[in-house]
């Protein structure tokens, strides 16, 4: 059944969810600021899923704003761009913006303050070129999902077929974060334009924009944008907002989760291990839609994004356009951050799903939506874990309808099979369960650990499996080689036998031969002579018997020759017979020699080929 969403159609609900204090103010009360250029940018080569591309600049190079710095590798990753003009001062290991706190290869770019652009190539009319070319453009512009895991947008769009609804997600349900809220208030028109472009690219029948009901200003801005877009009568692109439906969803965490929002809007669930596209839905974040519009209409790569800088340790909380690569320390400093406690917490992301950082030099990346520096008072650290009292509060809160409590017991017991049975993999780590747990059990931490352990186990299993396969392949190869060797020997032996048999057969055959033509006889003589010469040149390797036979044949042939020379008249039957026999013998000899040589050569070549083939196979396996 196709999904049909209209402005008045019913909203569904998802189970569970929580209402943590929103604390969106005061960060959402001021316009998005633009700080001066930071003194240095750290641009990690790898900002997203997939292998990092190949560097195409070197230390000391001067780069322009928007200039690609890497060429994507084979897996169609995204290039990274210079966020502003300046000089590459170093390419080195630098802390990554990642929960692991690991380092990664990073370009250090020192801005020259000119902010000079690399040539931009907007697309005037996307109808004039193929969808593939537009997607290639989006990829070259480095467009990735700004809401979630930073998946390349072009790949997401290319992989989706038969899309009924394109949902533009402006829900932003996590407390404190207001980046999308501000972006919608200030740039609803461009977000809508980008959304319509995406709709065109996905051939989605419907376009739905979802906003939580705690952002009335953003909703109003969108309603106005949709109205404007319908009013302007431009038939150049035919992109109209008429079909765009604005849906206001009730505030409840985590209604902005992809799966939850789909359930709210359609009542459907994304099947397990499936994608939204399986039920005809594609979701994009408002920030992504904005970036798509900038990339297509202005030819601008994704170089900056809105970041919320908030928390009580920040004196001027608000939002800012942050160039990708800006160290978060710079943003915090610009916002009047002062560490309030001996142990200050700085959270990358929101209070529910963000991670604490250990180094303020980590750069802003495409998925950085919030930097939160709370005081101990507003977000008190977790208290000591107490025993689970089976109160079921966690289960009531879980939006995925899991049994967090059961998962917790199982995780503590390291019962991985039990965890799989209880669908740990479907946990979206939203933290709702841990938020409500009265015993202060860090449930999500347990799940994360268990997931990591299960992953490790799977990798171990895979390794063991590969090792097993490799061993078996080797065994099979050895077996095959042995058989081949045996077969070769057998074949050679058979060939020899066959040759002997043929010789014997010919001898008997020739003895019963009828009359011979004098020409033939002459030819035979010549051949015999040649054979004789050959024989002389070649080192005698044949068996004694052969040598004897050859000698006999030679003698006979000589005699026959002499006879033939002496008598011009047709030879007598006996004489003729003798000559023929000798010729035949010589012929057989030669043929056999030749055949054997050929056979040998063939066999060696063959087995070599086979050997190579098996080796190759072995390599593939390893």
């Amino acid at each position, binding site marked *: 059944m196709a999904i049909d969403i209209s402005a008045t159609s019913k909203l569904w609900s998802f189970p569970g969810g929580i209402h943590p204090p929103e604390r969106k103010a005061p960060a959402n009360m001021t316009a998005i600021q633009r700080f001066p250029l930071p003194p240095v940018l750290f641009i990690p080569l790898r900002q997203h899923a997939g292998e990092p591309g190949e560097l195409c600049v070197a230390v000391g190079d001067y780069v322009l704003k928007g200039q690609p710095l890497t060429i994507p590798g084979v897996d169609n990753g995204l290039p990274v761009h210079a966020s502003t003009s300046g000089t590459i001062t170093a390419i080195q290991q630098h802390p990554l913006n990642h929960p692991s706190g690991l380092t990664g290869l990073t370009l250090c770019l020192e801005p020259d303050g000119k902010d000079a652009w690399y040539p931009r190539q907007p697309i005037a009319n996307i109808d004039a070129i193929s969808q593939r070319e537009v997607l290639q453009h989006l990829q070259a512009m480095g467009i990735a999902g700004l809401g979630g895991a930073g998946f390349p947008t072009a790949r997401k769009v290319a992989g989706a077929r038969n899309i009924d609804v394109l949902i533009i997600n402006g829900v932003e349900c996590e407390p404190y974060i207001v980046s999308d809220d501000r972006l919608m208030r200030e740039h609803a028109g461009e977000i809508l334009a980008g959304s319509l472009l995406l709709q065109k690219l996905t051939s989605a029948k419907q376009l739905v924009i979802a906003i939580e009901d705690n952002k009335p200003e953003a909703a109003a801005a969108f309603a106005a944008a949709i109205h404007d877009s319908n009013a302007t009568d431009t038939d150049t692109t035919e992109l109209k907002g008429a079909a765009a439906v604005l849906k206001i969803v009730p505030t409840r965490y985590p209604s902005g989760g992809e799966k939850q929002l789909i*359930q709210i809007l359609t009542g*459907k669930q994304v099947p397990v*291990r499936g994608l939204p596209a399986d039920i005809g839905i594609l979701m994009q974040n408002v920030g992504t839609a904005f970036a798509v519009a900038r990339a297509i209409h202005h030819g601008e790569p994704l170089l900056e994004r809105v970041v919320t800088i908030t928390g009580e340790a920040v004196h001027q909380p608000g939002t800012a356009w942050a160039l990708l690569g800006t160290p978060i320390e710079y943003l915090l400093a610009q916002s009047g951050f002062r560490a309030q406690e001996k142990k200050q*917490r700085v959270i990358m992301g929101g209070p529910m*799903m963000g991670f604490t950082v250990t180094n303020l030099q980590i750069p802003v990346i495409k998925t950085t939506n919030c930097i939160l520096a709370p005081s101990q008072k507003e977000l008190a650290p977790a208290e*000591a874990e107490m*025993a689970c009292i089976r109160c079921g509060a966690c289960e009531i809160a879980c939006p995925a309808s899991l049994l967090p409590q059961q998962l917790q017991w199982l995780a503590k017991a390291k019962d991985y099979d039990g965890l799989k049975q209880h669908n740990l993999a479907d946990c979206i780590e939203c933290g709702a369960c841990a938020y409500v747990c009265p015993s202060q059990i860090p449930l999500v931490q347990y799940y994360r650990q268990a997931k990591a352990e299960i992953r490790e186990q799977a990798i171990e299993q895979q390794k063991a499996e590969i090792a097993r396969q490799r061993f078996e392949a080797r065994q099979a190869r050895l077996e095959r080689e042995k058989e081949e060797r045996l077969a070769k020997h057998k074949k050679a032996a058979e060939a020899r036998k066959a040759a002997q048999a043929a010789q014997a057969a010919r001898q008997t055959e020739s003895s019963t031969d009828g009359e011979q033509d004098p020409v033939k006889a002459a030819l035979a003589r010549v051949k015999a002579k040649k054979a004789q010469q050959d024989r002389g040149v070649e080192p005698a390797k044949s068996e004694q018997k052969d040598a004897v036979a050859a000698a006999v044949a030679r003698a006979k042939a000589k005699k026959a020759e002499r006879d033939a020379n002496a008598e011009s008249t047709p030879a007598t039957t006996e004489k003729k017979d003798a000559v023929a026999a000798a010729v035949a013998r010589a012929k057989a000899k030669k043929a056999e020699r030749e055949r054997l040589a050929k056979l040998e050569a063939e066999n060696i070549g063959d087995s070599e080929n086979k050997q190579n083939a098996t080796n190759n196979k072995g390599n593939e396996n390893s």
Partner: protein
Amino acid sequence: MSFYIASSPHHHQRRTTAKLMQLVLFAMLPGFLAQLYFFGWGVIFQLSLAIAVALAAESLCLIARDRAPASGLQDNTAIVTAALLAVSIPPLAPWWVIVIGTLFAIVVVKHLFGGVGHNIFNPAMAGYVLLLISFPVQMTAWMPPTGLASNAPGFIDSLYLFLFQFTNEGFSLEQVRRIDTGSMLDAVVMATPLDHVKTQLSQGATLSEALQHRQFTGFAGAGWQWVNFAYLLGGLLLLQQRVIQWHIPVAMLGALSICAILGSIFAPDLLPGLNIHLFSGATMFAAFFIATDPVSAATSSKGKLIYATLIGVLIYVIRSYGGYPDAVAFAVLLANLCVPVIDQYTRPVTYGHRKEES
């Protein structure tokens, strides 16, 4: 500057188990005061001794199990268990009754099963049942409610009765429990309303005859009805504070009501009606404070509905046909036994695992 490292979520509801238990204790206050008013000082002695014993037993158990007693005691669960048991037994029952009951509840039912969160049975109700079976006389010796007692004992007399089973003047509990019927000859030992109805019915009287007794001044028995109201009030407070969810009280009271109504329709003269079932005995107390014990109840919302319905039906069946006048403790323990099965069959369907009905 050093950083504080933590795992998400970084925000928590400031609602610890300890606070939840405090709220439960607070919500018990109206019922407790009603009991104090109608049944005298005894309940205070019971409560004090029960809490003291419970804390001591909890500490010793934690030490024996190699846990830090301080952290374990913080959750207040032992105090709640003690309080639930203390208000369940007759106020002037001898001191050793509550001591035995509390020890059994904490040591055997709670800690031998693995401590908080692991006990299968509701500790307070298990303790109660042990006492009821072991000391049936002491455990059914409820005081007549204030106003009916001929000589209600004062504070000192109550303390004496609690400690030595005799008042200062040498009256026994039996004597104190007599109610003033106008003539000395008629002086009888007071039974609780449910007990009274049960005895009368079993002796061939009809319900209306049984209800002739002067203790049925209100609609469900003097004193008892107000105690039930008080616990209902406390229960509503728990609901409003979201300490408990509605599922268990609603399902339990609903099931009990439906049974009572059906009973009254089919055997109006032989089975007590809705008013008696709901407002006599320990009904409200059970619905809001006992059955809602998270540890021993079913987990999922659906499971809780089934669990509480079971309790409601069992209470009715045992009250009507069993050998004991009240049935809350038995019903709860029986339902506790069914929890693993209920939990098994009420597992919610995880997101994305639903079979799409297309």
